[in-house]
């Protein structure tokens, strides 16, 4: 167990600044999820911590120790990638035991057996231990690669979109499993994804990256309810926050350029008229696509609403966010 500290990490690739003086602390026992679209710098950050790549400037500390010049093998970390790479000629048991057989560790055989058994139990793959790795389903293979990280009991776990290649149902199951493994073991996780549901449901802290800069760090609820900017606000929430001209519903605070409305910030049945352009039924909820003078608004309503395209609904903001011309959120 250990904390991770990044101090003013900068990494350039030619003309592109992939990371721009990023400072970030992952507290001991925290589950930090880095969120951002392709190219935001998530994976580069992870590679700095793992030692797969080195920063042009800045320092990485794990458990208070500088990692400068240390190879990945010397850092006591475990990594899980999107593409599970198991040894195809080995059984599940041999795959799980492999990291413990490293000459650096010299783990006695009975300890290896005990650890493999415990991890297999946690991940519910005990009955597959003697199977060849190739005889597993995708979800099972990803469990084995997570298991291979767990047996080592490293100081920190680094995960790069480990669930992205799995189908939706399996992803939902593994989300809960990973979260409970992390919570029960008290391990430190640094996890990269572009899936906001993963970020919201698993993270103790979310770090929002935008073109190589860390723009906000906080609990999922903080990012969702008190985003620093339009960019941060747009990372979480489905349907996405509606960004509209500040004065669309009447007078706006001085300096406000945009009003930001999530579905729960729109009350229906009073206010100004909007036209229903589309009704999208998702089962548990129905999304209403509305229009006010050429501005599109998406909100949610009762699953069995009688509204149809062409109907009129009055809507009004309820505790909205206001943003200035630079997209920075203004104090309420």
């Amino acid at each position, binding site marked *: 167990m250990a904390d991770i500290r990044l101090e003013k990490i900068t990494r350039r690739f030619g003309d592109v600044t992939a990371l721009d003086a990023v400072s970030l602390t992952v507290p001991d026992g925290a589950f930090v999820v880095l969120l951002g*679209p392709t190219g935001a710098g998530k994976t580069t950050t992870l590679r700095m911590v793992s030692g797969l790549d080195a920063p042009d400037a800045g320092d990485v500390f794990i458990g208070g120790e500088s990692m400068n010049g240390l190879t990945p093998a010397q850092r006591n970390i475990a990594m899980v990638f999107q593409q599970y790479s198991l040894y195809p000629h080995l059984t599940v048991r041999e795959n799980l035991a492999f990291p413990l057989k490293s000459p650096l560790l010299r783990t006695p055989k009975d300890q290896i057996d005990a650890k493999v058994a415990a991890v297999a139990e946690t991940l519910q793959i005990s009955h597959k231990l003697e199977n060849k790795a190739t005889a597993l389903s995708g979800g099972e293979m990803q469990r084995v690669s997570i298991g291979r990280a767990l047996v080592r009991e490293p100081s920190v776990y680094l995960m790069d979109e480990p669930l992205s290649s799995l*189908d*939706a*149902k399996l992803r939902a199951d593994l989300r809960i499993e990973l979260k409970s493994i992390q919570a029960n073991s008290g391990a430190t996780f640094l996890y990269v994804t572009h899936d906001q549901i993963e970020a919201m449901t698993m993270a103790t802290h979310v770090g929002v990256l935008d073109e190589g800069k860390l723009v906000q760090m906080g609990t999922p609820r903080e990012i969702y309810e008190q985003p620093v900017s339009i960019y941060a606000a747009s990372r979480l929430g489905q349907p996405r926050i509606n960004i509209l001209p500040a004065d669309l519903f009447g007078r706006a605070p001085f300096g406000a350029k945009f009003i930001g409305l999530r579905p*729960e910030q729109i009350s229906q049945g009073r206010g100004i008229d909007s036209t229903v352009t589309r009704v999208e*039924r998702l*089962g*548990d909820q129905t999304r209403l696509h509305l229009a006010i003078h050429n501005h599109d608004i998406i909100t949610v309503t009762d699953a069995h609403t009688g509204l149809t395209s062409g109907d009129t609904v009055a809507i009004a903001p309820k505790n909205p966010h206001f943003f200035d011309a630079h997209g920075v959120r203004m104090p309420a």
Partner: protein
Amino acid sequence: MAQIRIENVRKDFGDFTAVQSSTFTIEDGEFFMLLGPSGCGKTTTLRMMAGLELPTSGDIYIDGEEVGQKRASERDIAFVFQMFALYPHMNVGKNISYPLFSQGVPKAEVKRRVDEVASILGIQDILQKPVGGLSGGDRQRVALGRAIVREPKAFFMDEPLGALDAEFREHMAEELRSLHDRMGATTVYVTHDQLEAMQMGDKIVVMNHGVVEQFGVPQEIYDWPATMFVANFLGSPPMNFLEYDGSVSPGDTQVRLGDATLAVPEQIEGHRGGLVLGVRPEHVRIEDNGSLRGKVLATEYLGTTQIVTVQTQFGEVKSRIDADIAVKTSSNVGLVIDERTLTLFRAQTGAALRSSSNAGVLSHG
């Protein structure tokens, strides 16, 4: 534009039966989803409609004409794959017009149709560009353009958005749907993503192990699943299943689970033995006076709503409630279930018992 009808279609690959006996109808102009997990037979079904596979038995009708044994080129359909293959040495315009040239359409007509398609897709300004430098979205649009330009009777799409990342996928899904709304062409779309199916489809077929489990309007299937498989496959999180032993008779309007008595829609079918009570997470509220009790295992914050997982004596129950309601992990809570929404299933077969509420939906699927 076309109606497509599948009748008792079966497909065997050696000993393996990919599709057992499918029957359903796709109406003219519908956006039709084939939904199911990998290996369920949805892609095989689509490939048989397209003529890329021949059915082992059964009939396929396109606009009333039986085409089951005809080749793909004789069916007047267009296929869009997950990996959009473009001709790398041709520019965008040439890629789109290629199918017309190969059919010998006159040059003036080709130009008119390419222009029309480009304006539908909003890609007029890139017609002269090579396809090499295009963004993923534009490549996808070009691939669609090549399908649209032939003005086929129907479009078949096999997970066309599968390779895209979440944000872009959502955007393309909306674009595809509104494109369909403008053109009104019959579209058959294969996906394993239930949200995509709910979001885009006029109708859904849910398949599992080569069998059509249910077929109908998305919201109706979601509300009134014919089987536990459908109830579990649609919805995220899926329907909760409370398993118990007991009996229910025609005319019953309540069931007993242990100490709790719960109201249910009036039952038409009865059953004795293993029963499963199915309820969607959004129909479970957390209230102190709830007759079903349990311990909170976890809460998952989702912004607008949260998912609360409660351990009851009949299994885990997930509840979707507003995010601003405070629920403590490990606390003891009561659950209130909206009786109008319940479905009872036979535990052994997974088939729904008919009630006054679901009979209408189950009779046409």
